[in-house]
């Protein structure tokens, strides 16, 4: 589904990613771990199409086609979703309106009929229940006045509603208390399906206790230093990252 080939990325003349190779198949959950500044978020943003990053060489294939010249919205319409590490506040834009506009853009792209307000509300209520979010958050502006936890739940709500094929979760677990973490993990498990893939970027092993990762990769200094199964995450928890430094 996702194939990253020898990807090099610069941000403001600084090399951040220095040759990433990663293949993700449908049904798989990959965890990418690493220290601050290792390039984890850059990787997520580059897949989503953030234009301030410069790809100097390499390629990103999605379902066999290169997407690096596609706009963020084209990627989203094709089924790629990124849960933001820092969800953005959009003053004055109603959360329901925003999510309905996004869903209908995707449905339209898929040749499906657009949902009207009543149909949308019916759908969104089911999704709200999964992430245990109060309906009041629908009526606020996007992420405006949301606590850190509510913002992350709102990201998962969007993922559940938009039903992408590939979800990149950028530190969706950071800053969450244990209850919120469980809810977010439940949301991810609810989303998980054989035809969908998940890449979760995280500092900590703790969310992986609630998710079954097929692969764990360690990103160090812009490269994947080691890949393994879930036990790699446990090793990292025990030993930290320094044993992989060379």
């Amino acid at each position, binding site marked *: 589904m996702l194939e990253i080939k020898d990807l090099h990325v610069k941000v403001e003349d600084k090399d951040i990613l220095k040759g990433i190779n990663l293949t993700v198949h449908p049904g798989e959950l990959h965890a990418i771990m690493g220290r601050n500044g290792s390039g984890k978020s850059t990787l997520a943003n580059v897949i*989503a*199409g*953030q*234009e301030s990053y410069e790809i100097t060489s390499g390629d990103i294939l999605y379902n066999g086609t290169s997407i690096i010249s596609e*706009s*963020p*919205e084209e*990627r*989203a*319409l094709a089924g790629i*979703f*990124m849960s*933001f590490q820092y*969800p*953005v*506040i*959009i*003053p*004055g*834009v109603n959360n329901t*309106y*925003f*999510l309905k*506009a*996004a869903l209908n*853009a*995707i449905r339209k*792209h898929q040749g499906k009929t657009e949902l009207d307000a009543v149909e949308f509300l019916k759908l969104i209520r089911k999704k709200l229940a999964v992430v245990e979010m109060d309906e009041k958050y629908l009526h606020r*502006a*996007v992420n405006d006045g949301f606590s850190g936890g509510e913002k992350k739940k709102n990201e998962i709500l*969007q993922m559940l509603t*938009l039903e992408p094929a590939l979800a990149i979760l950028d530190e969706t677990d950071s800053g969450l208390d244990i209850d919120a973490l469980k809810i977010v993990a439940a949301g991810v498990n609810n989303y998980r399906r054989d035809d969908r893939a998940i890449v979760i970027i995280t500092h900590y092993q703790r969310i992986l206790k609630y998710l079954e990762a097929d692969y764990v990769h360690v990103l160090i200094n812009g490269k994947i230093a080691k890949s393994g199964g879930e036990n790699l995450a446990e090793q990292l928890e025990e030993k930290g990252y320094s044993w992989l430094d060379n």
Partner: protein
Amino acid sequence: MHFLEKELNQLIQFWDEEPDALHTLRSSAFKQYKEVGLPNRKWEGWQFTDFSALEKTSYRLASPGDIPPVPETLPTIANCNRILIINGHFQENLSVLPDKVTVQTLQQAYATNPEIFNKAVVNNSNPFHNLNTALMNSGLAIIVGNNAVIDDPIHILYYTTGLTEPIMNHPLFLIVAGADSETTIIEHYAGATNVQYWQNVVTNIKLSNNAVLNHTRIQEEDHNGSHIADTVYSLGKDAQLNAFHFASGSSLYRQNIQVNLASSGASSMVNGLCIAKDHQHLDQHIIINHLKENCNSNQLFKYILSDTSAGVFNGRVIVSEGAQKTDAQQTTRNLLLTDKAMAHSNPQLEIYADDVKCSHGSTTGQLDENAIFYMRSRGIDVRTAQLLLISGFAKEVMETITNTNIDTYIDEKLTTWLEHIGVTL
């Protein structure tokens, strides 16, 4: 501007119905004007606007011959009483007026209510105000009776259309909200013409004790129109003013707004939204005078500026010595959509009392790139994302319009405007 003098002389000579005292008033106001002329950029409070364009056209005062057939479609706001004025001329037969509201021509007002009249036209440091006094040729007095509760808004539509040569109008509106009354008044300027015109309006609004007045001012003149206005509110004890100033029209727009909180317990909310494109220049100068104790005032002005347009906000809150327990808030926010658009904001506080709560703030920015990316990453295209963000920016101030029909009208104007707007930042 010799055309002004010529027009004044004709007005005095031929307007036989006018009492001599009014002629004297006109001459004296004109003399005041002539001593200083039009404001220039060296004047304090006028430095961001160039009025020289007004001198390049010989405007004449609108005459009854300027009334074209009334257009079939006029701007309409649902469920309103209407006062229709076409090219400066009150169309009484096309106006629908509620009971408990008295509408008088200026001559009638001068004859029956000289006190209100004289208070409104006192000599002024604003030369446009003096010019209006000298040349006033249009306008009405609108008096809402004590205790009157008027459910449907009074929509004053001042429409300019079908001109054959450049005209000017110097309307004077005298509005009195009686004690304990509740009214919504929409003062609405619009136009559609290929010929240049100039409106120089003075609106004097008095809120008697405990009156509640919602005043919406909509300025959507044709781009051939220049619109200058001086709007003065005076609030009595416990009176409550909710004003909203929407401006989208005119190539040259300057409004002075003055709010006098002249008795204790008065409160004013004066908000506004200005949207500008092309070479439009929209300038608003606001003074809130806290003259007595226990008054509060709120201002929130937003500007959305595209192309090579300019927006000016000059806001002063003055808290007088005796005005203890004043609560005054002032905020202005500018959104620039291109790198050629300009915003000048100058919020000022002058406080001469010690037990007060005052704040002011001003921001100027562009559309948030992170927010645009966030929306795009959810499948929303760039243009839609931009328009959502711009409407979102306007929403905070639009939400302060309490009347749904007025809100709908302005919201539709904003939506139509946005459809054609360029965003390059």
